C-alpha cells in the first residue's frame, strides 16, 4: 500500500506541510499568534511553563521534536530574550532536518512590532518553499499513527476501541507503525501487555513505566481526577473499566518498545510495528506527545469529543448512538446496533487512514482544534517519588 506524502530533506515524510511557530517563552505568545495570522497553515506552540530551562527540559525537548516532525515544513522560533532558552537551542537541531528555520529574539529585533514585521517576512519565505513541494508516492512503511481514546464512554470499549484495535493490526501488517500511550490507563492490563513484549528489556519498561504512572497520580492526600466527570456520566465507573475498554484499541501485535518522553529527551521508533509510549492520557498534551514521537496522524476513539490536533490530522471514531455527531470521521454505531461487524468498521478506518494520509481532510481539519499543550512531568515529583527512567 502507498500514499502521497511530502518527502523532507532528512528522508522523513510529511502528510501535511505546516509552519510551526514556537514561542519558547510565554511572553512572546502574542507575537507568535500575530505572525501566525499571515498563513492558514501555521501552528503555534507556546511554552507556558515560564522561560526557564531548568526543570522544563521535557518541554524543551518536545519543542525541538515538534519542529522535527515531518508534518512541519518549516519553523519560526521566537523568544523575548530575557529567559534561559535561546531560540538557537531549539532551531539548530530542527535545522539539521534540512527544513527552513528562522529565529527571532524580540529584545534584539527592537521590540514587538519589529519582531512581528520580520516574522511576517519569514513566514512568507517558508510559504514560498512549501508552494514548491510536490507530493510523491511512498510506501505505507513511512507512516506512523498515534492511537488514543478521549472522551471515552461505555460505547468506546464495545465499538470504537475494538474496531481501531483491528485496524491497528491491519495497518501494521501492511507495513505502518502505530504508537499507543496512556500508560496510566493500562494499570491492571500489564499481564496482557507482557505477553506481547518482544524482549525482556521491553517487559521491564512496561512494568516500570506503568508503575511510575500509578505512583505519580496516586499520591496520598493529593487526589486528582484520573477519570473525568464526562467519562463517568458516559457510563464508566472505575479506572479499571476504562482501562480494559481502552486496551482493545492497542491491537494484538508484538510490542517493539516503550518510547520515553522525559527530561533527557524524546525517543523515536527504530523498527516498524507497534509501540507503547509515555504519551499522556490528557488529550491536548497527547497530541503534542504523538507529534514529538514522530507520528503524522492520530486515530482517536471517542464518545463524541471533537478533539483535533493542528499539526497532526485526527481521525475520530465513535460508536455512541446517542451522541454521534458531525465531528466524527468513522461511524462505529452499527457494532452496537447489530448492523455492522467490527471487521467492517476496521476496514473503513484503514481506508480513511490511507485517504487522509494522501491529503483528504478530516471532518474537523482546519476548523476546530485543541491548544498545542506542552504536558510535562514535574521533575520535583519525579525525584521525590524516585521514579526511574530507562537509559
Amino acid at each position: 500500500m502507498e500514499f502521497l506524502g511530502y518527502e523532507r530533506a532528512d528522508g522523513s515524510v510529511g502528510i501535511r506541510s505546516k509552519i510551526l511557530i514556537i514561542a519558547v517563552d510565554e511572553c512572546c505568545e502574542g507575537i507568535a499568534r500575530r505572525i501566525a495570522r499571515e498563513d492558514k497553515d501555521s501552528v503555534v506552540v507556546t511554552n507556558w511553563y515560564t522561560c526557564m530551562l531548568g526543570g522544563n527540559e521535557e518541554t524543551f525537548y518536545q519543542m525541538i521534536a515538534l519542529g522535527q516532525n515531518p508534518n512541519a515544513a518549516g519553523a519560526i522560533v521566537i523568544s523575548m530574550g530575557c529567559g534561559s532558552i535561546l531560540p538557537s537551542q531549539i532551531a539548530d537541531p530542527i535545522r539539521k532536518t534540512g527544513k527552513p528555520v528562522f529565529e527571532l529574539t524580540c529584545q534584539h529585533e527592537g521590540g514587538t512590532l519589529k519582531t512581528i514585521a520580520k516574522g511576517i517576512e519569514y513566514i512568507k519565505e517558508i510559504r514560498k518553499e512549501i508552494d514548491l513541494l510536490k507530493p510523491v508516492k511512498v510506501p505505507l512503511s513511512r507512516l506512523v499513527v498515534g492511537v488514543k481514546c478521549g472522551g471515552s464512554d461505555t460505547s468506546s470499549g464495545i465499538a470504537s476501541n475494538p474496531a481501531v484495535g483491528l485496524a491497528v493490526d491491519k495497518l501494521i501488517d501492511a507495513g505502518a507503525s502505530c504508537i499507543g500511550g496512556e500508560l496510566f490507563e493500562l494499570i491492571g492490563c500489564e499481564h496482557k501487555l507482557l505477553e506481547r513484549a518482544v524482549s525482556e528489556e521491553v517487559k521491564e519498561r512496561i512494568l516500570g513505566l506503568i508503575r511510575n504512572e500509578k505512583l505519580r497520580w496516586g499520591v496520598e492526600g493529593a487526589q486528582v481526577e484520573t477519570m473525568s466527570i464526562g467519562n463517568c456520566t458516559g457510563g464508566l465507573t472505575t479506572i479499571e473499566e476504562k482501562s480494559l475498554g481502552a486496551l482493545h484499541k492497542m491491537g494484538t501485535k508484538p510490542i517493539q518498545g516503550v518510547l520515553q518522553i522525559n527530561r533527557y529527551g524524546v525517543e523515536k521508533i527504530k523498527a516498524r510495528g507497534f509501540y507503547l509510549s509515555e504519551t499522556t492520557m490528557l488529550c491536548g498534551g497527547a497530541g503534542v506527545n504523538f507529534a514529538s514521537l514522530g507520528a503524522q496522524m492520530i486515530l482517536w476513539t471517542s464518545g463524541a469529543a471533537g478533539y483535533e490536533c493542528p499539526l497532526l490530522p485526527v481521525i475520530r471514531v465513535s460508536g455512541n448512538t446517542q451522541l454521534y455527531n458531525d465531528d466524527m470521521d468513522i461511524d462505529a454505531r452499527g457494532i452496537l446496533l447489530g448492523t455492522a461487524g467490527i471487521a467492517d468498521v476496521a476496514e473503513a478506518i484503514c481506508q480513511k487512514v490511507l485517504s487522509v494520509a494522501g491529503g483528504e481532510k478530516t471532518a474537523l481539519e482546519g476548523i476546530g482544534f485543541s491548544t498545542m499543550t506542552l504536558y510535562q512531568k514535574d521533575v520535583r515529583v519525579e525525584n521525590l517519588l524516585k521514579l526511574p527512567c530507562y537509559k
Partner: protein
Amino acid sequence: MNRAIRMHADDSVAVLLCDAKKGDVLHVFDINNAFLFDIAVNENILYGNKVALHDIPEHSEIVKYGQSIGISTREIAKGCLVHVQNVKSLSVDIPDSIRREIIRQMHITD
C-alpha cells in the same frame, strides 16, 4: 428495541444501549449479537450505564469483560444501576467531591 450488551459470559453486569425506566424489560445480547435473556430494570438507568444481572452482595467484585472492574460498596439488587454510588475502584478511586458531582449530574438516587 430495549437492548443491552453483556461483554463476557462471566460478567455480573450488562451495558444498556438505550435509556430505560423502572419496570422496563431489556433484551440482553452477547457481543456477537446473540440473544441471551431478558431482565427487568429496578430503577431508571441511562444509555451506556450498567445493570446488575444478579444480586451482588457488598464487597464483591464487579465483573465486566470477564475481569474485575472494582468492588461493590453496598449490596446491589438485580436490575439496579451499577455505578459510582455503589462501586469503587481497587486501583485509584475517584475523589469524593467528584463522585458527588457525578451523582448530582446523573440524578442518581444515592
